[in-house]
């Protein structure tokens, strides 16, 4: 799968990139909402792993815009903010899955596989 990982923390991007690449997926990284949208406009992605807390444009806005695209990817929301309201909002905006930090890498990988299986 072609996966876009969006998070402003270096220390999250690096392990995620490693894991997903190891699982055989193609990974593109974005550090801000703008970068993410730019990447989405340049090419189609199957999945977007999205952190809600981004500098500048926040995660919900990115989610909305992404879902408005023609080739909208599936979205897995990853965030440290674990409130119910966030979860509900994310799902209402169209996110397919919601995971709270911290997570185990196995949980993440299995969630990604599940989403990939939907294609």
């Amino acid at each position, binding site marked *: 799968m072609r996966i876009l990982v969006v998070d402003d923390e270096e220390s999250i991007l*690096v392990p995620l990139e490693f894991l997903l690449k190891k699982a055989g997926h193609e990974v593109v990284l974005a550090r801000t909402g703008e970068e993410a949208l730019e990447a989405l406009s340049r090419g189609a992605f199957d999945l977007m792993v999205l952190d809600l807390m981004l500098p500048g444009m926040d995660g919900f806005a990115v989610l909305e815009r992404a879902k408005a695209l023609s080739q909208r990817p599936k979205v897995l929301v990853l965030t440290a903010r674990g409130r119910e309201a966030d979860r509900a909002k994310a799902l209402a905006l169209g996110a397919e899955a919601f995971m709270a930090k911290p997570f185990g890498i196995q949980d993440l990988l299995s969630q990604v596989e599940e989403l990939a299986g939907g294609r």
Partner: protein
Amino acid sequence: MNPLLLLLSLFLYLGLLFLVALLGEGRGRFLVQSPWAYTLSLAVYATAWTFMGSVGRAAMEGASFLPIYLGPTLVLLLWPFLHEKLLSLARAHRLTSWADFLYLRFGHGLLGPLAAAFLVVGLLPYLALQLKAIAQAFLFLRGEEEPLTDIALPTALLLALFAILFGTRRLDPSERHQGLVLAVAFESFVKLLALLLVGGVVLWQLGNPFPRVQGHPELLPLLLPQEGLTGYLEWASLMVLSGLAFLFLPRQFHVSVVENTDPRHLHLAAWAFPLYLLFINLPVLPLALWGRLLLPEGNPDLYVLALPLELGSAPLALLAFLGGVSAATAMVVVESLALSILISNHLLSPLLLRFRALGSLLLWRRISILAVMLLAYLYFRLAGEAYALVAMGLISFVAVAQLAPAGLLGLFWKGATPQGALAGLLGGIVIWAYTLFLPALARSGWLPSFFLEGPHPLLSPEGLLGIRGLDPVTHGFLASLTLNLALTLGVSLFTRREALQEERTGEVEELAALLRRVLGPEAEESFRHQARALPGREAAGLAETLLAGSVGPATAKLLLLSVTREAPPEALREEVEEAARESRELRAYAQALEEARKELAEAYERLKALDQAKDELLAAVSHELKTPLTAVRALAEILEANPDLSEEERGRFVSLLAKETARLSRLVEEILAYTRLQAGVPLARSPTDLRALAEEALALVEPLARERGITMESHLAGVQALTDRDRVLQVLLNLLHNALRHARSRVRLELTLTNREALFRVFDDGPGVPPQARALVFEPFQSFSGGTGLGLFLARRLVESLGGRIWLEEGEGATFAFTLPLEVEHEDSGGGR
């Protein structure tokens, strides 16, 4: 002897007494309050009568000089019944004299003035005898035979002056004159010493007189007890008489009751004063015998002076003179003071009140003293020549004893009524005058001899009802006191006790104003202080007591009439007070309840706020922890699951792991710092090189800057400050981390010195703080950029605790600036709120 020498030594001695009095009012106050001073002050009982008259009496009448001192011994043994009771009464009601007590106990308006006036007249012989003693002594030593009268008048005036100086310096409602007490105590010591010295020297030089008496049979009766029944009666009467006098003499009441500072002094006085009397009487008989033996023609009252002269010792005679004068002076000063208080309280006050002249009480006291001394001089002129010293004194004793039935029965018998007291007193006065006072005047030729014989043999002034053979004093004493007692008892039994006087109640304000008018601002202050918590009735009672001390009880009552109103009758009053008290209690209770409720509500709000803050903190903290924890967990798991990573990748992951772990620990540090701030850990001040500190901070954040690719710039001035190094470092690190997080390419740290402050500025070229967030940027848990949410808040708290200010500057990017005072002057270890 040179008269100038006499006068000079006299004045010197009086001057010394005056200095002692001043000492007693000043630094010597502790002396005055010792029980020995009290005991010695009681010895004002021993006057020139004791010093000179006793020897005279012993020389002519034998042992009858002695019972005068046995009486007070007996009375003092009964102090738990008498003096102790009087002391507590006096303290409670501000009694200044027996007349006050009579008024207090009986309430009859006539008793006080009558007692006061009678005491003045009755004490004239006693005062006159002091004048006579001094005048006699002076003339004798001077060696001339001038008439006594020329010396007596100046003596009287001088003594009056002394009394005024000692006793009327100011108006004290408690009538305490501490200086006077010390002077009297000192004087008592001097006269004891003087008489013992004179006696001792005479005995030493002349030897034992008793063997010589064998050769002079006319002297033998002096050594034997009184003859027969009459002799025994005289002995017994003198004892009872002197005991009563000791109790009722105004000067004795004054020194033993009014001037008493501690009732426990009585424990000492009860045995020490009789001991004093015993000692001062030891030389009397030997001196009397030697006087009779060597100077049979001389005046026995002057033996104490004549014997030293006979021995050729002028200094000893001078000492004896001073001793006698000293004794007389003390008596006059205290007695005339006590009389002036009596006069002003019971005789003058009602008049002054009517003429609204109460403000000049002190002046009237002084006039009273002068008047009394002039009257004493007058009596001396009229009746002094004919009598020996002791005989004169005894007339006064009998007068004073007339107060005894009313006084003692009033103390111990509830059935004594005002009418009884009045009747007894009047009867006693009449008999006393008839049997003692008037005959004395007649004997000197100022009244017709009718007063010596009476209209009828049965009514002979010196032999009522046909009783013969008694000496006048015994006779007068027995007659007057018998009638007095009989009337007091009889009339009391036949009259009913009146209901207690109605009580009055008043407002504290008006009462205080009255006290100010009459007694001055000090009394008003004292009253206000004491009356703070008293209900109206008791406040009125207190005001009355305070007034009575200075103007006498009758006048005090009159004064109070104007500012008080009747208190409601007893039974109803109790119910009313009860109801008032209950409603007061209820209201107080309701109020307390309301306050407690308010406090509870406030506490609840505070608790809710705290709880919310705690929740927020917990949420923020856990939130902030999640991100680095995620990374740490992921990286660690990867490292574990992939042992075959390339060196480069492994290295990268490990360094990321290290970075995130450091981030976690920094977060924990900040939280700890936050809690420490909350707890208020005090500052640690030390001289700090701020430039070096800034460089250290830069060095600490350099790895992070390098990693993010941010250029660090700095411009640091050399600034020293007295401050908490760790805290400043913490602030710098917080600001630098914040800057690095947001910067695009540059972060700049500036340190400059302005006025008396060090100014730090941290600039980053990041997106800056959006306008809506500017106000909240220093608030806790406001992180909008992935920081801890606490960093800037902590920085603000720290800077404020160090005495500086922190703010966000306007302009491109974000510039955070804070100041530090060069010296931390005002510590607030918790920072601002």
